[in-house]
Structures are given as structure tokens and as C-alpha cells.
């Protein structure tokens, strides 16, 4: 069972992501809360590895959504640059939550209304040292 983590390196943050991904049921939605540089994308890199995906995971901030695997097994969604809920609805965001693929959302606050009730919420925080990150389950 995935537990709150205090990681001391990007590799450890990836490891925490891989562990979580391995435990998620098909179609799970994960919301990653936390500021810039708090380890969210690094964590998603680990999730992809945990799902056995070999593609390189890069930030979807500008593309809005990256999908991995054919057929898709992971949707990496980032609401940082598009805070309008209406625009996300118009881009079909809800459909990404209605498949068997895992959907992980960075900066999810703007689209909270679209998240399924069983969404796993994680909170990311900076630690005391530049490499330390705190990751805990919220709600």
C-alpha cells in the first residue's frame, strides 16, 4: 500500500511514483498538488516507469496533455497554462477520465469540478534540502 513519502533525490521521487502506479486500478485518476519545482513531473516519470512505459516523459505544460502507450495507458495532463474550466471542457478533458488508462493531472485546481470523486489527491512540498521532497496523500 502506497505511503506518504519523504524523498531525498529525484530518483527516490520517481521510485515513489512507480510504486503508486503499480497499485492503481485501471482508469484511476491522480491529482498532483504543489508549487513549481516540487517534483510533480519527476513523480510522473516514475509512474510511467511503474506502468512499464519506455517513452521519455517530458513536461506537458504547453501541450496541455501528453499520452503514452498505444493504445494509451497514461495521460499526463497539466492545467498550469490554461486555467479556464470551460476551455478544458471544450477540449474534451472528461473523456480522458473515462478510459482504462491512468490519468495524472498537474495543477488540478482549475478543473476540480471535472475530477471523479475517487480521484487520488497527492500534495507535494519542498523539503529542507534542495533534493528533498515531501509527498503525502491529501483528503
Amino acid at each position, binding site marked *: 500500500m502506497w505511503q506518504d513519502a519523504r524523498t531525498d533525490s529525484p530518483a527516490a521521487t520517481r521510485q515513489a511514483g512507480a510504486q503508486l502506479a503499480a497499485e492503481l486500478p485501471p482508469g484511476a485518476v491522480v491529482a498532483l498538488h504543489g508549487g*513549481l*519545482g516540487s517534483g510533480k*513531473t*519527476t513523480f510522473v516519470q516514475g509512474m510511467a516507469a511503474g506502468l512499464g512505459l*519506455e*517513452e*521519455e516523459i*517530458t*513536461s*506537458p*505544460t*504547453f*501541450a*496541455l*496533455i*501528453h*499520452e*503514452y*502507450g*498505444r493504445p*494509451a495507458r497514461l495521460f499526463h495532463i497539466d492545467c498550469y*497554462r*490554461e486555467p479556464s474550466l*470551460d*476551455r478544458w*471542457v*471544450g*477540449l*474534451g478533458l472528461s*473523456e480522458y477520465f473515462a478510459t482504462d488508462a491512468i490519468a495524472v493531472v498537474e495543477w488540478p485546481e482549475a478543473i476540480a469540478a471535472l475530477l471523479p470523486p475517487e480521484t487520488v489527491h497527492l500534495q507535494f512540498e*519542498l523539503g529542507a534540502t*534542495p533534493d528533498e521532497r515531501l509527498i503525502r496523500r491529501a483528503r
Partner: protein
Amino acid sequence: MTVLGIETSCDDTAAAVLVDGHLQAHTVITQLDHDAYGGIVPEVAARLHERKIVTAVRQTLDRAGCELSGISALAVTYGPGLAGALAVGVAFAKGLSQALSVPLVGVDHMEGHLWASFLDPLQAPFSGPFLCLLVSGGHTHIWRVNAAGDYDLLGRSRDDAAGEAFDKGARLLDLGYPGGPALQAAAADGNDQKVRFPRPMAGTEHCDFSFSGLKTALLYYLRDAAPDARATDADIAASYQAAIVDCLMDRLQSAVRLSGLRQVCVAGGVSANLLLRQRLDSWSGREQIPVRYPPQEFCTDNAAMIALAGYHRLQAGQSAGMELPIVPNLSLAGRG
């Protein structure tokens, strides 16, 4: 040959008309008027594009002085991008292709950027293979362009794109939006030697980039620098910008060394950065390596570049049938 290009890979809807490789007109619709839905939130995927695409195509044809019946081929982005958004463009292009009985060609969105420099009528295409440094908010890539439809990815960012590093750096410094120009303006009077930020990947014998550690270094500098020892915002911005540009130059030079190619295109929104242009221009003069940039309006997403890439593919005898798929994670190089 009159090519109608269509691009709907992300949130912009765009169309362009090209005659024998020369741009006649193009349109990019970013957002419809606020009340375009009459207050009703669309419930179906990609309705944003569905509402915009007819307008974009009609405006473009009008400006080009071209009738629908004058179109001799269609070029459409079929990936990478958002599935629902791509589907609207591809379905529209297929319908038009059938109705007009003209060929359809699928273009990779990245491929469009690689050809964007040659939308400038004053720039003749390079002869033979060339390098393309693609630097935008979403991508930081170095490609080897061999011919239409024949590309090798030499390097890419392993995390954040360069434009994203600019944007998020500006956010951390509270400089406003859009971040790239804001950071550049703030850096104008700064001393770029004041803060020593890392140059991730510099000096390595490959062409990959990494910018996420640079962002984190800025984050921790702002959090941890003692108030009396902290550099001014201008000095921090200048030092941070210099680090990004140093990384881009270092990786590009690595690509030149490793590929042996000595002609370069630079594409994407970050190519507008003044420091990068200065550094590229002086390097170009020193090394006798020609460097080309797209006109400003073609640095961001547009359909003109899709039409041009499609034109090159059509010239090479390539086209797609009605079975053209949409591929949200399409890759020119099979590297994700």
C-alpha cells in the same frame, strides 16, 4: 499546386493557403468571442475547434482570393496533439478531400516547425540536409532534416522545454505573463555574472537538454538567499536567461560537431529571444554556418508550416488515403 493546410493539434485552430510553395494567406484563431456558445458550455470533445474551423478556412480562402474549387490538395496535422482536437481537423480535411476529389496528406506537427523558416519568400531552401533547433514552450529538440518525410531526432529535452524554463522562471520572479518577453525585459539591465546557475548537460557528448534543474536552482536561490546578499531581480533574471541560452548554444554546437552539418534553422517561440539571436548570429559569423529563422508569426503554431511540409511531401509523391489515422503521440523519430 494550391495546398490548403489545416492545424488543430492543441488549442489553436489554423488554416493556410499555399500556391506552389508560396504562402498566400493564413489564419490562426486562438479563442472565439466569449459568448460564442451563447452561455452553453460545450459537452462534447473538441467543440472548440468544431466551431472555429469553418471560420478559419473561410477567412483564409477569402484573403487568398481562392475558391474552394481551386484547391488541389489538403495537408492536415494528424499528430502529435490532443486526440479530440486532431480528430476535428482530420475529419474536416478528409471530408473536403472527398468532396473536391483532391489528394490528402498527413503532416506531423513537429515536421511543420522544421520547415517554417522557408515560409519567408526571401529565404531559399538549404540544399542538402540541415539541422533544426526547435525551441518553444512545449519542445526543445534538435533535428537533422534529410528530406521531406526523412528526419532524425538528434537531441531533446529530457524534462522541461526551454520556453517553459523562461515562463516558469518569470513566474518565480513575479515578472508577469507571457514569461519569455517579461524575463528578457527584466534581464536587460542585469549583470548575468551575479548568480551562478547550473548549465545542465553542458559539455556532454550528446545533444540532449535538461531545464528542470535550472528551474529548481532558481527556486532555491529565491528561497534561501539571505536578504542582504540577494542579487537584484534584474541580475537574477540576466543570470538565469544566460544559463538557458548557454545550454541552447552548447547543445547546438554539440549537434554540429556530432553531425558534421553546417547549416542551421532555428524555430519555435524562443527563437525570438534577443540574447539567443545575438549569440547565434555571432557564432554563425565566426563559424561561417548560416542560421535561419522563421518570420515571427510562424514561430508559434500555425497552418502555413503544415501546408509547406505537406507540399514537400506531395512533391515527393506521398499522400494518405481516407484511412489516415489521428495519432496523439505521433513521433517523427520513434523516440516518444
